[in-house]
């Protein structure tokens, strides 16, 4: 029964992400979207139940994945339609909540250290690693990358997300306002 529930939720998360993907290629129609010239960042908040289902279907125990699933988390999708290479470092991204508090993101390596400690299977850890928005990314012209990420604490809504990237012209900021975490 529980396995069936997990599979159904996992399917809905996949369908959601897939639908997003189609929208992304056809113009990045996201719940939250910012464009700066030909660089676009889309953000979709993800609920705890959807993430639990997705990762439990890939070998995580409910106990192990709970802190990740219950963190304020998103699916990011970033596209480089410029003719330049751009780079991102997740450690440069942060949220600013309604009280002005600055909240950084938990890097995938920090989560992986927890999975290692909890003895999660290798296949589950590989799936987790590559389902995340990577700690550092390089976007060649035409590349687009999607992945999940979490904030270190739950911000007071609405909050702002500041996402930095670099190219040969210097540093740039993408700013998304009025974001909220997703709740079940």
């Amino acid at each position, binding site marked *: 029964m529980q396995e069936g529930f997990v599979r159904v939720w996992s399917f809905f998360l*996949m369908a959601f*992400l*897939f639908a*997003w*993907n*189609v929208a992304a*290629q056809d113009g990045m129609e996201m719940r939250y979207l910012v464009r700066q010239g030909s660089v676009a960042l889309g953000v979709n908040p993800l609920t705890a139940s959807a993430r639990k289902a*997705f990762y439990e279907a*890939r070998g995580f125990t409910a106990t192990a994945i709970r802190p990740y699933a219950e963190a304020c988390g998103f699916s990011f999708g970033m*596209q480089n339609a410029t003719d330049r290479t751009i780079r991102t470092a997740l450690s440069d991204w942060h949220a600013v909540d309604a009280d002005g508090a600055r909240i950084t993101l938990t890097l995938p390596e920090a989560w992986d250290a927890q999975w290692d400690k909890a003895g999660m299977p*290798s*296949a589950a850890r*590989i*799936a987790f*690693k*590559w*389902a995340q928005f*990577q700690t550092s*990314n*390089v*976007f*060649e*012209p*035409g*590349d*687009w*990358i*999607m*992945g999940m990420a979490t904030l270190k604490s739950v911000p007071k809504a609405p909050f702002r997300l500041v996402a930095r990237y670099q190219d040969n012209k210097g540093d740039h900021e993408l700013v998304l306002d009025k974001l909220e975490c997703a709740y079940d």
Partner: protein
Amino acid sequence: MSPLAAVPPAPTLRLKDADDKIVELAQYKGCVVLINFWATWCPPCRKEFPSLGRVRKLFKPGEFEVIAVNVGEDPDAVFSFAGITDFPVVFDRDSKTMGAWSVRGLPTTFLVDRQGRLAYRATGGREFDDPEIVNLIKAML
């Protein structure tokens, strides 16, 4: 797809398919080979996967080949999604090959030239039978 300026030699690719048969990039020397790193849980990978079969059919065997490298999954999970393909699907269960190829995210695709060198790379989903990519492949033959 973006050209790799240095055109370095392709790293070794030697993995088993679902029947435990070894598939090796070296056996395709003289062909242009499209290498696609993917997983069934990756939405853009699923979307682009059918285009691997379509682009494969546009060329003669022996001049252009496709190898799909599944990362971290087992043959049952892959078969339920991909079914029977007319190109090899191999399994990088521990993601070591993915590491050796310096893959930064899924999906990632490389075009290996006839001399076994990395010529082009794309991160994120593509439609491989798009005329722009087909023309790139034609120019490499």
